[in-house]
């Protein structure tokens, strides 16, 4: 009986220690600032957007450019309109939605060498 109790205790302590170590590790690692400024939900579930946004944008890019299909769902312009920061009106910059995560993942991104990173419409570029 004692042996069983000791085993249970060891397992519980071990698990707790493991979780604790994970927490500590997570707190040591810098995480990207992901601020979502507008809307309740994205055009697709978060997991899917995190994994596949580049593919979705690439596909939409060719559809729009080559075939003239301007479907709003995966349009870069609409991404920027929702995700641009309230302060700067942009998805770039220190805490910018696009740039903070790409800097974290060390992925260079060429979109905004040509496309505007600023939110459009009446609020374009203006702090709200």
């Amino acid at each position, binding site marked *: 009986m004692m042996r069983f109790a000791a085993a249970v205790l060891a397992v519980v302590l071990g698990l707790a220690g493991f979780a604790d170590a994970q927490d500590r590790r997570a707190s040591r690692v810098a995480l990207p600032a992901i601020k979502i400024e507008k809307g309740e939900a994205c055009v697709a579930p978060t997991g899917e957007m995190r994994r596949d946004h580049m593919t979705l944008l690439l596909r939409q890019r060719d559809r729009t450019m080559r*075939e003239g299909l301007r479907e709003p769902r995966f349009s870069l312009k609409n991404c920027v309109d929702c995700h641009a920061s309230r302060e700067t009106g942009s998805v770039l910059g220190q805490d910018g939605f696009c740039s903070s995560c790409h800097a974290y993942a060390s992925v260079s991104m060429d979109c905004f060498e*040509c496309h505007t990173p600023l939110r459009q419409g009446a609020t374009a570029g203006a702090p709200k």
Partner: protein
Amino acid sequence: MSLDRRQFLAWGAGAAAALAPGLRLIELAQARSPEEAASALQRWGLLIDITKCTDCDVCVTACHEENGVSGHGRPETDAQWIRKVSLRDKRTGYAQTLPLMCQHCEHPPCVDVCPTGASFRRDDGIVLVDKHTCIGCRYCVMACPYAARSFVHEAVSGQKADVPRGKGTVESCTLCVHRVDRGETPACVEACNRDGGKAMAFGDLNDSSAEIHRRLKSEPSSQVRADLALNTGVRYQGL
């Protein structure tokens, strides 16, 4: 049962007559929805009446404003999507002025020479540069007989949302494709008809109910460098 040719043709004529007038087997151009691809049923074009073209440059200003084309005060290298060209007959002194931009050819030399397929002709006749695949080699700039293409030499900022522009790529008149896709007319045409000499008309060259189609059919018009047989989408009157 054997059919001779004459009988077959007679039946064919009867069948054709049975279709009501105005009923088309293939529906022609209408305003497209965003979910509908550009189609070869349409061919967008311009008709420019030079006799009405005055000394102004509202088309140039409007184009560069609409597309966010701004220079660095270096005319040799600054991008130019549309320009005013002045012609003068040396013998008589008769002077004319006309706007010149991408002529949106049916057989565009810029598309023939592009090594990456970046320069392409959309199904509705608009000739574009896909800057995602443009490597900036400038073969198209050399190939275009109208000198309509520009290379972007310097980093760009402050682009319009609908008109991405960037260093190291070639660009030219897009016939305001973002406006056309919304069912509007190009900025130069709108400005010319509002503030200029009302010299420019835009429309679908294939649509028999369009004004541009009717005018091209009933009035004389010409292409710049018609000898090259490029079948341009931009036509001139009074040249």
